[in-house]
């Protein structure tokens, strides 16, 4: 019979424990998890990059919903356990779910420490612990107002850098004389403070917070020395303490944390504790490496191996603030029995300090240049006698024995048991072994198989070097296809950074994202122009010089340099007056060819560029506007005659098509968008091979999307059925906006849908009403600036220069 394993908490430690357990004893337990947070397991270390906008939440998920389903694990999201009944062996959640257990693992983590000053409970005082805190901070940052971060440790500084990146005016208050005093000595603390201040963050040390005041919400922070700092947001990041309340109430032995033995077992033999809530050998831990070690030990015990034991380890600390290199390890207090080696390079902003005892490294602080961290860590761990290389030790591994090594050679020289990934305790040999044995060629593969660089990511460079050393050219570091040769970044990266960094011009994007060319190329400029138009509809000034000629002159260039012109015929419906106007234009400008298009409208081909404004003026007189037949934007909405005429028609398909077209014309999209509305499932408008299509049925409107009938042929996917025309419009518009925001330039809807997943699109558009309405609202806002007929603008003289030669030369001479 399978035993019941219940886990309280769904952070990184229990997530890792389950991975080990599923590997060691698959099928032994029926697993149930209660997570007080309403979500899956994500990488909490990466919250700082989420706050600064460098990563999205979706990118830091460790186990998605599918993982729990695949392994038959029941996950209660948003369920906080309120009681453990050790006699009955059950746990009960705040929503009233009671679950029996044979084995229980408590992984309730820690709670942020709140300084009990007056005003600590005012609205606007936050902690920095989980995704909800990050979201609240990002929301507060939108006001671009002032923030105070209390606490100049690792967490406080990462919070401050994140809020600063979000555009807030940030002050850090730290009670000690130097920043991060537990990990850094005063010299490095000073360098760090200078670097933080250079980013525009104010730092006040020896700051004793006396009160947070304000009328119903945070307005200022008052210090003991009388200083008053205005603020609308206060983040408390002064430390954490183990969250052991639940265990204590259940009568389990608790000291600072839940007391466990080296096998992670509490004084109740069926109850284990792992993670930040656990206390082993009198120590509690907060960095991920020892927590993962606890997870491994607990999994071994649960799988029946009673021998596994947790051993204390020192873990290096790294600050995850982009642009600040900092590494700290071990003990670096001064003492009579200790010696130190220090290297300072003020100009380069480098500071290195090694603390030695009996010719062995016991502590390391590196600032500004941390490449040798792994090596020093290795020497410390192995207690290597360094007396032989003492003179050159501080210069790093490259200087040991002969000529300086290049970085690649330095990695090659590391012994097989040198630790590469501190978070996951992965050594060099394990990585190179996995690469060879499993034929791994991408970073993602290595992360999946070995976990190296899968947590905080700071060892990614080392792992990549190992891949190059092991498989050479077969390793393609650009698993992400760059946009073009002007950048190493892919489309998604660029789109995200445009939003995150608030970049609003093409030069700003190129400057901030370190473009390799001075003004881009014909591939990246139109893409950037689209992304900026889409993301900042009201602020961005469209750069016509970065658009292809067709979109610049609002007509389609032909092989002989002439143009073709297609006016809009709403829903493919026209009348005598319109046809007469077209006939007149054709005669007047001697247009050589008139053709009916596949999108139910009329194309006039062979128009000379100089004639375009006059052609448009005449067409405009008859009420025509541009059909955007040249645009990466909404093209046509094909219709059939529907219930007005057809004996089979179930709804007014023509009317709906016209309504959609009138609502959506003028919008720019990553690639062209063609739509159709058919009045019945006989589908005369061929809606099931369009980017977006509607099939009307008696009960309403079946919305389709992601079809293709060009280079690829593909039938549509069904988004869902809605009852009314209004709903149909809202869903179609929301879907298009989602595509506008996520699609890569020139990527049609069907390719985008394949990439992000049909199910995800359905979930956001069909099931999540709030999200759908938000997409809809953003589209409507954008249309305010987009629905301007480009033809009438040009017929009235805009961009005259585009249509006329600047001069005529040589004709007189030729006549002589």
């Amino acid at each position, binding site marked *: 019979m399978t035993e019941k394993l219940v886990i309280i908490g769904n952070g990184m430690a229990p997530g890792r424990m389950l991975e080990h357990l599923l590997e060691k004893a698959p099928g032994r337990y029926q697993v149930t998890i209660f997570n007080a947070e309403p979500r899956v397991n994500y990488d909490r270390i990466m919250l700082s990059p989420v706050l600064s906008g460098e990563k999205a939440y979706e990118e830091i998920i460790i186990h998605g919903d599918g993982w729990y389903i695949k392994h038959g694990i029941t996950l209660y999201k948003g369920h906080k356990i309120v009681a453990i009944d050790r006699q009955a062996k059950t746990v009960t959640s705040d929503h009233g779910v009671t679950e029996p257990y044979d084995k229980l693992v408590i992984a309730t983590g820690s709670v942020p420490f709140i300084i009990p000053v007056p005003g600590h409970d005012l609205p606007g005082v936050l902690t920095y612990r989980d995704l909800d805190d990050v979201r609240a901070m990002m929301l507060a940052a939108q006001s671009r107002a002032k923030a105070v971060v209390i606490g100049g440790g690792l967490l406080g500084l990462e919070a401050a850098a994140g809020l600063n990146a979000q555009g807030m005016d940030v002050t850090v208050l730290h009670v000690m004389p130097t920043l991060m005093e537990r990990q850094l000595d005063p010299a490095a603390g000073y360098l760090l403070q200078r670097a933080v201040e250079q980013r525009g963050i104010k730092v006040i040390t020896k700051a004793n917070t006396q009160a947070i005041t304000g009328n119903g919400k945070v307005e200022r922070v008052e210090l003991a020395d009388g200083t008053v700092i205005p603020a609308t947001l206060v983040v408390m990041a002064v430390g954490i303490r183990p969250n052991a309340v639940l265990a204590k109430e259940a009568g389990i032995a608790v000291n600072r944390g839940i007391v466990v033995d080296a096998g992670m077992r509490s004084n109740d033999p069926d109850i284990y504790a792992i993670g930040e809530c656990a206390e082993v050998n009198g120590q509690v831990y907060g960095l991920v490496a020892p927590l993962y070690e606890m997870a491994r030990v607990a999994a071994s015990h649960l799988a029946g191996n009673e021998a596994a034991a947790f051993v204390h380890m020192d873990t290096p600390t790294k600050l995850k603030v982009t642009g600040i290199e900092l590494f700290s390890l071990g003990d670096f207090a001064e003492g009579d029995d200790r010696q130190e080696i220090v290297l300072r390079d003020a100009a380069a902003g480098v500071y290195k300090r090694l603390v030695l005892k009996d010719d062995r490294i016991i502590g390391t602080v590196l600032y500004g240049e941390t490449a040798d961290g792994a090596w020093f860590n290795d020497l410390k761990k192995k207690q290597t006698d360094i007396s032989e290389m003492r003179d050159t030790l501080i210069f790093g591994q490259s200087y040991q024995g002969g000529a300086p090594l290049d970085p690649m050679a330095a990695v090659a020289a590391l012994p097989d048991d040198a630790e590469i990934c501190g978070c996951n305790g992965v050594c060099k040999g394990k990585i190179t072994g996995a690469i060879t044995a499993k034929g791994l060629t991408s970073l993602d593969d290595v992360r999946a198989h070995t976990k190296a660089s899968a947590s905080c990511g700071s060892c990614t460079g080392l792992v990549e070097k190992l891949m190059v050393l092991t498989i050479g050219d077969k390793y393609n570091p650009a698993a992400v296809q760059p946009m073009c040769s002007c950048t190493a970044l892919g489309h998604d990266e660029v789109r995200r950074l445009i939003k995150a960094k608030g970049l609003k011009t093409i030069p700003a994007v190129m400057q901030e994202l370190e473009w390799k*060319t*001075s*003004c*881009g*190329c*014909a591939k990246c*400029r*139109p893409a950037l122009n689209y992304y900026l138009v889409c993301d900042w509809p009201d602020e961005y000034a469209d750069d*016509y*010089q*970065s*658009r*292809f*000629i*067709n979109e*610049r*002159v609002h007509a389609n*260039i032909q*092989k002989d*340099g002439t143009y073709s012109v297609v006016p809009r015929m709403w829903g493919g419906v026209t009348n005598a007056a319109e046809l007469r106007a077209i006939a007149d234009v054709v005669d007047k400008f001697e247009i050589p060819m008139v053709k009916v298009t596949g999108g139910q409208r009329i194309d006039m081909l062979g128009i000379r560029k100089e004639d375009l404004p006059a052609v448009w003026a005449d067409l405009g007189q008859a009420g025509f506007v541009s059909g955007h037949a040249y645009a990466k934007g909404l093209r046509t909405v094909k219709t059939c005659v529907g219930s007005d005429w057809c004996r089979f028609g179930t709804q007014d398909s023509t009317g709906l098509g016209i309504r959609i077209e009138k609502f959506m014309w003028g919008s720019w999209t990553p690639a062209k968008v063609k739509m159709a509305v058919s009045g019945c499932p006989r589908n005369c408008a061929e809606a099931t091979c369009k980017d977006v299509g509607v099939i009307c049925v008696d009960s309403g409107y079946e919305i389709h999307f992601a079809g293709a009938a060009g280079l690829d042929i593909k039938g549509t996917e069904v988004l869902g059925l809605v009852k009314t025309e209004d709903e149909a419009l809202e869903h179609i518009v929301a879907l298009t906006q989602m595509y506008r925001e996520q699609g890569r330039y020139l990527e049609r809807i069907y390719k985008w849908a394949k990439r992000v997943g049909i199910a995800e699109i359905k979930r956001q558009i069909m099931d999540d009403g709030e999200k759908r309405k938000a997409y809809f609202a953003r589209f409507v806002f954008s249309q305010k600036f987009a629905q301007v007929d480009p033809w009438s603008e040009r017929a009235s003289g805009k961009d005259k*220069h585009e249509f006329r*030669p*600047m*001069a*005529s*030369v*040589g*004709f007189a*001479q*030729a006549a002589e």
Partner: protein
Amino acid sequence: MNWVSIGTLSDIPRRGARCVAAPEGKIAVFRTADDQVFAIDDHCPHKGGPLSQGIVHGTAVTCPLHNWVISLETGKALGADEGVVRTIPVRIDGERLFIALEALASRAA
């Protein structure tokens, strides 16, 4: 050399081009992001595409028909493509722009 006035720098948008009509065909006059001016035949060596309609980047233009990239300085196709288009000397005098007419005539003759 017979320099013929064709207009002013501000007639051409930055990272853009204008055409000058001449007896033997159009001449494309380009202005780069840093205000250098180049003149070449408005005729891609590949299939005759109007280069003046392309996207200007650095000192090159990408042809609007099939994306050949042509150097404005040398008239040569860049990258793997091979071909060359005639370049015409340009003089900038303050704001005013001139092209060398002999160059045209000699070729036309």
